[in-house]
């Protein structure tokens, strides 16, 4: 009864193509936005902001970027973290060359750098496919991280080789640096993420989305129906790296506060890939679900023994955590290879049909 | 010929039955019900055709028998399948091959990167009767399909559709089966080749006593070579009988042979009208 689609007829293609063809979806999204914009900020603790809310948002944004490339365009990439790094270092350079610059402008401009780098490393995708391409993206991963380490100009010749976020403010409110309030940073990230998500939804359901999906599903056929593979693949690389780059900028400026090259190494790439896959390839919603799971899981696992009163030393706990995360990943893949988004879709489907089973 | 009333006791007593499928139900992905109680029997040394429209469930029936459903998230939820008198639902496909029942899959699944000869040799995977026996069977396959001998060293992925079809059938023969489940052997083949392949089916049937259960769209040819036929519509057997009787059935003529009424209709002048099959009425 909750999901009744009957009686909602569309009389024009505009209406049929609206973002939420079904009213209930609209209310659901409204509810989620309300939660994110009003309820969480009122209730969350500092720890919740820093360890849960902000990371979930940033990771899901990065996963969204990756999903456009891998889930929509079918080009497996293992270099996400490096492209995040490009975004982060570009933002850092912008902010240190033009200290008065608005941080959001800097972040959105930096996206273009990572988009350009993404396109450069995406060029081989015109020849190379599948796992070969995946390994090739590792070239970007390793080369860029090496560059972050060796090119001292990037980190302003800091002795440590790390970049550190200085304090900056927008409209008189401190948004970055150690003195920025977590809730402010949360709102900053949330706004960016909402905006980019909306863009991504539009892109994926329009012409580009179709080109990407066609390339993913059968690239030869796509070419034969008139899609230029070069355009499809390179725009996917560009858009994906752009979003990923923004996520990188946010990661450093609104969450970590500092970063060394290592941060952008392969484990982060894998983590983002996990989120995209566990969430569901080729789905926007999945990124958020996946990020919630992957971010919350270790936090919960860490708190669990304490909550249950089981004495366990930190190393053993860590080993167990790693084991459990590994096992859970496998379990999730087995239960629903198409990810949490599919899970949600099935539930929704059932609700529409309810009370009939088929 | 009757409209699928009580098939069980009518056929199961026959001692000459090699395969009998009793009232099976198949579900894919836990939700998609595809076969809704299908029963059929194949007599020893018989050629039985399984006819029906696209998506009727022919392939599913064959895969249920050969136990290849698992890999596609499908399962038999009801009913029994007896091969040579033993229940086989729980067996793995390779066990079934060892017992002499092999499937030739729809769509020519050849091993693309293996040469034609290697493809054929994989067919002998379950055999334990030594190299020389396998060698001589290989020769036999080449006798049946001279084209394969010509292309024995080519990678199967680069051979044409017809050659791949021959390769798939030849590969099945290499296991020395007593029963072959043949899925759409004629699909995409030139008319001449279709006849050739069915001739080989007949030869095998007569010379080696191999039984066949074949799923076909090409009703014409299928009923020419088969001894008995079943017609499957959306997961149910709607009609069965001797090949000859089926050939003369008005409905079959109308809907499967295209020769109903005033002889063969032309494809150019098809009118759009919703026809109703009598058995569904």
């Amino acid at each position, binding site marked *: 009864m909750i999901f009744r689609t009957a009686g909602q007829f569309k009389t024009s293609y505009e209406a049929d193509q609206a973002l939420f063809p079904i009213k209930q979806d609209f209310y659901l999204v409204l509810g989620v936005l309300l939660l994110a914009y009003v309820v969480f900020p009122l209730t969350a603790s500092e*720890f919740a902001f*820093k*360890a849960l809310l902000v990371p979930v948002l940033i990771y899901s944004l990065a996963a969204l970027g990756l999903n456009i490339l891998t889930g929509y365009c079918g080009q497996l990439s293992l270099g996400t973290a490096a492209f995040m790094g490009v975004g982060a270092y570009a933002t850092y350079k912008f902010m*240190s060359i033009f200290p008065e610059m608005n941080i959001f402008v800097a972040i959105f401009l930096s996206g273009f750098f990572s988009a350009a780098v993404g396109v450069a490393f995406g060029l081989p995708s015109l020849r190379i496919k599948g796992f070969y391409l995946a390994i090739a993206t590792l070239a970007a991963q390793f080369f860029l991280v*090496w560059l972050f*380490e060796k090119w001292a100009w990037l980190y*302003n010749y*800091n*002795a*440590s*080789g*790390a970049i*550190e976020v*200085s*304090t900056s403010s927008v409209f008189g409110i401190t948004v970055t*640096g*150690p*003195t920025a309030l977590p809730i402010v940073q949360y709102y900053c990230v949330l706004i960016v993420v909402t905006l980019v998500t909306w863009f991504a939804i539009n892109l994926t359901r329009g012409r580009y989305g179709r080109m990407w999906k066609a390339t993913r599903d059968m690239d030869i056929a796509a070419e034969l129906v008139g899609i230029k593979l070069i355009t499809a693949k390179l725009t996917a690389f560009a858009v994906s790296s752009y979003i990923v780059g923004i996520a990188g900028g946010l990661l450093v400026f609104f969450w*970590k*506060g*500092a*970063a*060394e090259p*290592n*941060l952008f*190494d392969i*484990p*982060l790439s894998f983590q983002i890939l996990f989120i995209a896959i566990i969430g569901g390839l080729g789905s926007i919603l999945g990124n958020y679900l996946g990020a919630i799971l992957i971010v919350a899981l270790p936090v919960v696992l*860490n708190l669990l023994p304490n909550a249950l009163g089981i004495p366990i*030393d*930190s*190393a053993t*706990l*860590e*080993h167990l955590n*790693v084991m459990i995360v590994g096992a859970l990943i496998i379990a999730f893949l087995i239960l629903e290879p198409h990810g949490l988004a599919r899970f949600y879709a099935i539930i929704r489907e059932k609700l529409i049909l309810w009370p009939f089973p088929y | 010929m009757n409209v699928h009333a009580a098939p069980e006791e009518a056929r199961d007593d026959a001692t000459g039955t090699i395969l009998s499928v009793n009232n099976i139900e198949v579900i894919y992905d836990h939700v998609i019900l595809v076969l809704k109680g299908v029963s059929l029997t194949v007599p020893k040394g018989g050629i039985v055709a399984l006819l029906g429209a696209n998506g009727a469930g022919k392939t599913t029936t064959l895969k249920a028998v050969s136990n290849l459903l698992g890999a596609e998230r499908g399962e038999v939820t009801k009913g029994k399948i007896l091969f040579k008198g033993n229940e086989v639902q729980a067996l793995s496909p390779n066990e079934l091959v060892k017992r002499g029942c092999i499937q030739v899959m729809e769509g020519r699944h050849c091993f693309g990167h293996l040469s034609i000869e290697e493809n054929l040799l994989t067919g002998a995977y379950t055999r334990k009767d030594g190299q020389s026996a396998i060698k001589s069977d290989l020769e036999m396959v080449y006798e049946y399909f001279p084209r394969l001998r010509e292309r024995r060293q080519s990678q199967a992925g680069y051979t044409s559709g017809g050659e791949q079809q021959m390769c798939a059938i030849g590969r099945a023969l290499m296991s020395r089966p007593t029963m072959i489940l043949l899925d759409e052997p004629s699909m995409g083949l030139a008319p001449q080749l279709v006849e050739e392949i069915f001739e080989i089916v007949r030869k095998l049937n007569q010379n080696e006593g191999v039984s066949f259960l074949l799923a076909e769209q090409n009703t014409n040819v299928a009923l020419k070579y088969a001894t008995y036929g079943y017609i499957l519509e959306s997961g149910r057997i709607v009609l069965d009988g001797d090949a000859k009787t089926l050939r003369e059935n008005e409905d079959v003529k109308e809907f499967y042979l295209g020769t109903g009424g005033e002889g063969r209709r032309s494809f150019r002048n098809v009118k759009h009208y919703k026809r109703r099959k009598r058995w569904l009425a």
Partner: protein
Amino acid sequence: AEIYIPNLSYRTGPFAATGIPLMNGQRDYVEMLNARDGGVGGAKLIFDECETGYNTNKGVECYEKTKSKAVVTQPWSTGITLQVLPRTNVDKIPILAPGYGFSPMADGEVFAWAFNPPISYWDGASMILNYISDGDLSSLNGKKVALLHLDHPFGKEPIPLIEKLAEENGFEFLPIPVGLKEMQNQSAQWLQIRRERPDFVIMWGWGAMNAGAITEAVKTRYPMDQFVGVWWSGYDGDLKLVGEKGKGYKSISWNVPGSYPVMDDIKTHVVDAGNSLLDSPEDMNSVFYQRGIVISMILVEGIKAAQEKFGTPEINAEQLRWGLENLNITDEVLADLGMAGMTVPFSTSCTNHTGHGGGWMLEWNGTEFVQVSDKLMPDRAVIEPLEKAKAAEYAESNAPWPDRSALPCE
């Protein structure tokens, strides 16, 4: 009363091999105090580990997780130290990074909340250079000194100082980085050493890198007596991998392994009581286990100082900051603690957060590390201006950096 002292430890990951003995030492000293004296000054010490795997990322998470209750943060990696450094000003939690972290942290006037006693990396580099040049740096003129270092903030720490000294004293300085992924496969680095034939190789290595380097050195036949490591490159476990062949390898250290009274207490109250995480009691003799004890001792002395000054057993983070700034660990104090000769005496102050206590050279004799030098001291005259300059630079690039007006020197 209870005092919560978390430790951002790493018993997992590629650096676990060297991390574990240190963490064990730290833990066991605290447990011993709890068992023997019921804590410190009437306050029980709650020693809690948060696992970082030497990963900066996780380290920062641990910092965030523990900071609300903690009186101190022990980040245990230069990378983590650098990242939490700006935050500690805001969160008002002292960093205790004994023998690691950012060398300019010595400048307490800039880094009010950070402490790296008894000695900094630049002090260490200076002491090593003093040792290999027999106290006369100018004798290195025309020679070549290589720095084989982990390509990580930790490994890069000594570079500015050595660069400066090389320029001043006319020796050639050759940094050779080892990437985190190459730690176990250093043949390219050692081929470079073979080609360049440096007169000395100084190692700033950690974890699996140490064993890899020593193995390669043996293979390349680099003379062991010209090969010197920082204190983190002097772990018995690493050298045991090469055994006899590593004979002559040296490592600077600010603790000397041996049997001290305090060790007996730990043995009776912790190890024998079954309350230690040590694999075997033998490991108590290792350099690193004992260094872990020294590290906890420094922290505990800070707590004691704060308790005395503020007259309360349950001190808070800001009070501990004062305590760490007013450490005075003399030979007498060490003797009282049953640690005479175990580590260097030092004292900290408002302007000096390191203490610059000096150290000794240890040498691997094939089975264990033994002391082979008198106490070595760093060249403070050279280091101090550099520290001041870099500290100011840091404050500037992290502007607005809080000054000490809120925490006037007393």
